[in-house]
């Protein structure tokens, strides 16, 4: 569209202005209703440009950072927040008195394109409340995404939520157009779902999850070695669950995640600290969302996915909560002091990864650099290996990098997270206290 034409369009009528005001208000309502969903990754797809606009890169790109410090990658909105369900933990529950609205598929597609062409976003994260019925909602979402892919010839990233309870056929059609699909598990156990989200069930979540994981696997297998591979959610499937709204332990949550990774080959499980949005008596009264706990779960989840840990190495029935004061890898190392110190010049890759403070990059650099020379402490520093924590667990050419600390309690103190996380820790303590006095009846 040329510039002149667009000015006329804008200056033409008052009516035009009202439409735009409405769009802005709608956006405020429907983005506001979607923001508690924490997953925003745009990674894992390499959809190529097909002559129209856009493409997706395997690494994903952050386009901005909001005041809460989170990355903005996708335009994350609900198509509608007019929900017929009444999940206790959700702002959009039918019994809540909030402004309601919806985008038409045409509006949604146009807005996405305009944002995308300005490089505001990597693509669209489309979700919705249950508008009328799960199937009707999915039909509207499908129409939006079809418009984007067919009419606008959009090859950017699309993450689409599958509405629990919708037909599997609709879920499949969504998967054929989107880069990533997700079904939110919402709460870590069936009892909790029944308690807080009575219109959903374990089945309504797991059935589409399992169905989609099969289609994803088939498409991936069909594409091996061929360029005309069938695209079905090439960035895979993820899910999200709310932490701190119900009483499940970290151990239980991590075992659930591990199971989801294994059975449905999920790409990610997202943990979302429960943000108190309701004074429902079934919910705990929190002063603040349990952010530190969420953070520790992400760290532990990371250890499961990339460092070869199992939940049972991190926690057990008698000790089911992650340590708030130290990160899960440090906690593991402190319980396994007999395996340390480790000689940097000879340790295996797997063991290096288990040293607190050493990540995949550092471990790989060590392997490379030690081919050329025997590594001393100064070399490690030059490689960019952070030794703040690692120094208590490493030997360099036979020499230890720190005064040995015999006493595990003192060592733990030295390895505690300081400053920023202290604040989070204080909040967490306050939360625990509040929990003790909370009248809410917690499902166990």
């Amino acid at each position, binding site marked *: 569209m*040329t*510039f*002149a034409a*667009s*000015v006329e*369009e*804008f*200056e033409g009528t008052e009516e035009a202005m009202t439409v*735009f005001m409405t*769009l*802005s208000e709608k*956006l*405020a309502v429907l*983005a*506001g209703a979607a*923001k*508690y969903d924490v997953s925003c990754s745009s990674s894992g797809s390499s959809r190529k*440009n097909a*002559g*129209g*606009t*856009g*493409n997706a890169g395997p690494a994903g*790109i*952050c*386009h*901005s*950072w*909001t*005041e*809460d*410090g*989170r*990355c*903005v*990658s996708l*335009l*994350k909105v609900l198509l509608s927040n007019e929900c017929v369900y009444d999940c206790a933990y959700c702002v959009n529950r039918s019994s809540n008195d909030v402004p309601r609205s919806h985008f038409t598929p045409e509006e949604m597609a146009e*807005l996405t394109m*305009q*944002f995308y*062409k*300005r*490089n*505001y976003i*990597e693509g669209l994260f489309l979700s919705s409340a249950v508008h009328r019925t799960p199937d009707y909602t999915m039909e509207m979402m499908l129409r939006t995404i079809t418009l984007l892919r067919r009419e606008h010839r959009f090859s950017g990233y699309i993450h689409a939520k599958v509405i629990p309870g919708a037909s599997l056929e609709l879920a499949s059609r969504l998967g054929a157009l989107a880069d990533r699909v997700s079904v939110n598990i919402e709460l870590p156990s069936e009892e909790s779902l029944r308690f807080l989200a009575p219109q959903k069930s374990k089945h309504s979540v797991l059935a589409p999850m399992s169905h989609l994981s099969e289609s994803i696997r088939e498409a991936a297998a069909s594409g091996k070695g061929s360029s005309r591979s069938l695209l079905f959610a090439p960035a895979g499937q993820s899910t999200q669950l709310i932490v701190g709204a119900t009483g499940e332990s970290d151990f239980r949550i991590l075992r659930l995640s591990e199971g989801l990774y294994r059975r449905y080959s999920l790409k990610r499980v997202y943990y979302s600290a429960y*943000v108190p949005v309701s004074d429902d008596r079934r919910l705990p009264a929190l002063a603040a*969302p349990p*952010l530190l706990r969420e953070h520790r779960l992400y760290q532990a989840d990371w250890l499961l996915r990339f460092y070869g840990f199992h939940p049972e190495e991190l926690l057990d029935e008698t000790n089911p909560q992650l340590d708030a004061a130290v990160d899960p890898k440090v906690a593991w190392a402190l319980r396994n002091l007999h395996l340390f110190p480790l000689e940097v010049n000879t340790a295996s890759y797997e063991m290096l990864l288990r040293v607190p403070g050493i990540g995949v990059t550092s471990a790989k*650099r060590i392997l*490379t*650099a030690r*081919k*050329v020379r025997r*590594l001393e402490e100064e*070399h490690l520093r*030059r*490689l*960019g290996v952070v030794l703040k924590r690692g120094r208590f667990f490493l030997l360099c050419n036979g020499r230890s990098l720190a005064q040995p600390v015999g006493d595990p309690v003192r060592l733990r103190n030295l390895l505690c997270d300081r400053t*920023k996380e202290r604040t989070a820790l204080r909040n967490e303590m306050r939360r625990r206290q509040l929990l003790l006095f909370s009248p809410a009846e917690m499902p166990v």
Partner: protein
Amino acid sequence: MRVYVYDGSFEGLLTVFHGLFRDKAQPLAIHRRGVAAQGFLAETVEVEADPAKADTLYEAMERRMTPRAVRLLYLAHLSEERDGEMRLFAFVCRGGQLGERLLDDLGDPGVAVVMRMANRVERERERFLGLVRFREAGTFFYAPIEPACRLLPLLGDHFARRFPSMKWMIHDVGRKEALVYDEEEWYLTPCDLPGVTDFGPREEHYQHLWRTYFAVAAVENRKNPERQRNRMPKKTWKWLVEIPRGKREPGA
């Protein structure tokens, strides 16, 4: 020992290196034209970029030190760090000794420092893939930026793949240089316009919608402005549409 002055291009720098190797000379300093030499009394040599010499050295380096090492050298050069050229020269000399193992020697301070320069450029490039903001200006899309490193040569491929059927231009306001794409290919060109800011009501409308989205998307009780500034330093706010005008750096 002499001070060498070149035009700032990678080609120019390689021409300088080529001469140094030929003459087995050690430079006192190498810097871009226009960067003030700091009161050196030494003799100054102006070197004109010579594509043939640059190519010869380029190919020799690829053979001797691996293409990856040469790519790293190129990236590090784009950091435009003060006195960076001397580090790059030391890196190439070390490459002459170590050959293909150059990049494995992460323990060598000279290698480590060039890697850090290259890393800085890569990181800033990655950040700007997200932070470029196009404004619709009639028939084309225009984006002003002011990165610390010279990023334009590293942005062309990405945006050409992403927006192949749009006309667009990314303007490095500080360096007075533009990356222009004409629906077929991209090229770099000098550009001396001051950054334009006014684009009319249609553009204003979408900017307003984006600001609305940005403001709403933050979860109030998770505020963490420190983290925000960490990821998106204030010096990048100047050209960001989503930052309310009053909060942007002066001049925008």
